[in-house]
């Protein structure tokens, strides 16, 4: 049953990629902002959790809960003070500014934490596993996928069941008319980036507990996140989960065939989907 095992591991890995991608998808969907520093923000949040764990002796899951409001505030401030000034008809300023932000974060982390790779220890849960039928499943990967699904359910509830969610979608459709409804787009964008940073914190928890990370880890995470968002269709959160799972399965299947093909297989799957469905699997009806 090794193929079944391979696919199951791939699906679970996809949960991690979906968590990487959900915040990116959210921000792009609402304000058409491509955040090139997204991967670095995940790494930044991982260091924040690491500091909370080592300095205060917190359990990593508790530390992530503590980090969430801090990251929300950081995202809110980043959007209000920096990114809102870059938004406009020209798509270049946000790309340049977030690219610069990516370099700033990497170098600041390098100054603060050195280039040594780190890991967040979660007290043995990393190596625990469950036997589900014929396959053994790691507890941590299972928690990752469950968290990704929960995060996406929660974001969908926020989007489609609340007044703030309506304001998100209305602002995304037409910011001028949203202003006539009393919506201040800059405030809406700041709240959206804050929410995205909460998801980033969840992603950081699993990034940091499952594998080593260092200040330069961000950009490679960003690529998987981008691919997941584009496979799923821009602006669709469930599509982002599907995109993450497709990349995850492609990687584990590729690695099962030949260990050198793991990364390549993920990118090939991305290109294959793009070839067949250029707008992604679940594009939004209106763009």
């Amino acid at each position, binding site marked *: 049953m090794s193929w079944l095992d391979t696919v199951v591991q791939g699906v679970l890995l996809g949960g991690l990629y979906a968590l990487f991608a959900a915040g990116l998808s959210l921000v792009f969907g609402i304000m058409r902002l491509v955040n090139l520093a997204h991967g670095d923000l995940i790494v930044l949040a991982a260091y924040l959790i690491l500091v909370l764990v080592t300095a205060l002796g917190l359990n990593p899951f508790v530390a992530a809960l503590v980090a969430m409001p801090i990251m929300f505030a950081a995202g809110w401030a980043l959007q209000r003070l920096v990114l809102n000034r870059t938004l406009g008809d020209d798509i270049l300023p946000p790309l340049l500014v977030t690219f610069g932000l990516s370099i700033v974060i990497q170098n600041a982390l390098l100054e603060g934490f050195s280039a040594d790779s780190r890991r967040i220890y979660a007290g043995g849960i990393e190596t625990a596993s469950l036997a589900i039928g014929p396959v053994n499943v790691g507890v941590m990967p299972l928690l990752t996928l469950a968290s990704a699904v929960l995060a996406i359910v929660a974001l969908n509830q926020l989007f489609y069941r609340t007044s703030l969610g309506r304001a998100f979608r209305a602002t995304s459709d037409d910011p001028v008319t949203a202003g*006539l409804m009393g919506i201040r787009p800059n405030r809406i964008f700041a709240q959206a980036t804050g929410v995205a940073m909460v998801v980033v914190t969840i992603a950081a928890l699993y990034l940091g507990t499952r594998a080593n990370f260092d200040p330069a880890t961000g950009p490679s995470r960003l690529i998987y996140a981008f691919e997941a968002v584009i496979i799923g269709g821009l602006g669709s959160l469930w599509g982002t989960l599907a995109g993450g799972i497709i990349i995850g399965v492609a990687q584990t299947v590729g690695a099962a065939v030949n260990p050198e093909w793991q990364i390549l297989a993920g990118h090939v799957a991305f290109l294959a989907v793009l070839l067949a469905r250029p707008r992604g699997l679940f594009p939004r009806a*209106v763009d």
Partner: protein
Amino acid sequence: MTLLQTRDLKAFYGDFQALFGIDLALAAGETVAIIGANGAGKTTLLRSVSGIIANAPEAVTLEGRPIGALAAPEVVALGIAMVPEGRKLFASLSVEENLLIGRYGRDVAGPWTLDSVYGLFPVLKERRNVPATALSGGQQQMVAIGRALMSNPRVLLCDEISLGLAPVVIRDIYAAFPRIRESGAAIVIVEQDIGQALRVAERVYCMMEGRVTLSGRPGELSREAIHAAYFGVHA
């Protein structure tokens, strides 16, 4: 008692001047029509009042309070709601969500609620869960009007609500105006369709090339005078 007033209102798009000193007054509960040809500056006037275009603070006043420099979200909070030209419904929102978002910036008690808007336009209730842009043009216009009413405005600004609609549909929509008036809102109707505007308005302003060329009560204005003020030709 003057509710809304503009004094020497000038508006620019870059170097292009669209309005050359507009003086206009609206009493509480009054219905005023602004007519004029394409490019006369009617839409610019509404965009200035609603805060999409910023002006000198004193150029627009609400009960004497200068609001000309306020942004759109602050203006709607004070009770001036706009039905924008071309309806501008939110495509990702259902009919009901479009209505609900109308009270985002001004959630006050008043005659207008989801139920009373559905009472005004019953067809919307049947289609409340449909994406707003899937409706016919006339129904979309009803949503746009309902969305503005949801903030229980003191002033309702309507920009070209008959544009692109069949005459029978236009008649249906204008049939709602007496009830909107009874709710106490003052109404500014901008139209190219003079006949419709003159039927519902108590006073009318005619604009041409960024200036008011004629104003008065519909019954007191001759066809020739309106013709001259509208087209700039003297019969």
